[in-house]
């Protein structure tokens, strides 16, 4: 698993969770099914893209600071 794919996975979950959390704190209305699904899909897509970008940047910075043969340390 690469850093970008791991970041994308985290971003997708984060986007979905944030949408539901924003409803709980009163900024979004998820009472109707159709806009609620749209909000969740948009949150997942945006979160996935942003997470992949963040993971990619963090991966590059990590590789610049660590040697490749320390890969087992990441486990």
């Amino acid at each position, binding site marked *: 698993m690469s850093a970008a794919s*791991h970041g994308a996975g985290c971003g997708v979950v984060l986007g979905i969770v944030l949408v539901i959390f924003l409803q709980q704190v009163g900024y979004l209305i998820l009472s109707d099914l159709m806009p609620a699904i749209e909000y969740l899909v948009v949150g997942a897509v945006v979160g996935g893209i942003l997470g992949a970008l963040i993971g990619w940047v963090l991966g590059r910075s990590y590789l610049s600071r660590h040697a490749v043969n320390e890969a087992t340390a990441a486990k």
Partner: protein
Amino acid sequence: MRTHTPHAKRAGISAAIFAVIVTALLLNVPAAARATPTVSPSTATPAAGSTPYVTWNGNDIANAGTASSALSIDLSQSATLNYSWSAAAGIRIHDVRLEMFYFGFAVTTRDVFLNPSQTSGPVSLGWTPVSVGYVLEGVYRLTASLIAPNGSTMWSENFYVRGTAPLGFVALLPIVLLLLVVYELYGLFRSGRYAALGRTSATPPPASPSTETPPEGTTTPAEPPSQETPPPAGGSP
């Protein structure tokens, strides 16, 4: 063996501080959202033959028809809804219903069955949403409806409420979501470590030498008995 450089430690501390700040900011939101009801109590009485109307603790729900004008309620407090309709409207009502929707599904439903069915109100419906308040909070669409004896909906009206959890934050779903947000943020900041794993898995493994010695403590498996061993010689003369 895992090594922690000072830079990685600083990044971890920064991520933890960021997560704590986000948590503190998000926890303050429900407290700020707790506001006094913005809808003034309706004192109008229905005229004969007018459309039915419903009041929520004295507030006309027609004034809460949009999310921005939602009724601010405490989900640990009971609410009394008064359904009023007149006989001149020409409807017989058997069931007075209140539904609360989440993702298009009714998460809670309250009914008052009228037996025999009535041609005029008012009918009072009490609702204490404590069980919902320990799970959910936020803005929800509710539907007040009048049901005929044949099951058809004679009248209904949508309105919105902004429910706050008991003590402002004791609701299961927001707490679980907040923990998930913190955990996923931690995972996102930690994703840089997976770069080394991705690089090593992308490169093909080197060819294994034939002279590889087995690790210590392992025993070579015993050779299976050969299939070509001749059978024991019979006692031929």
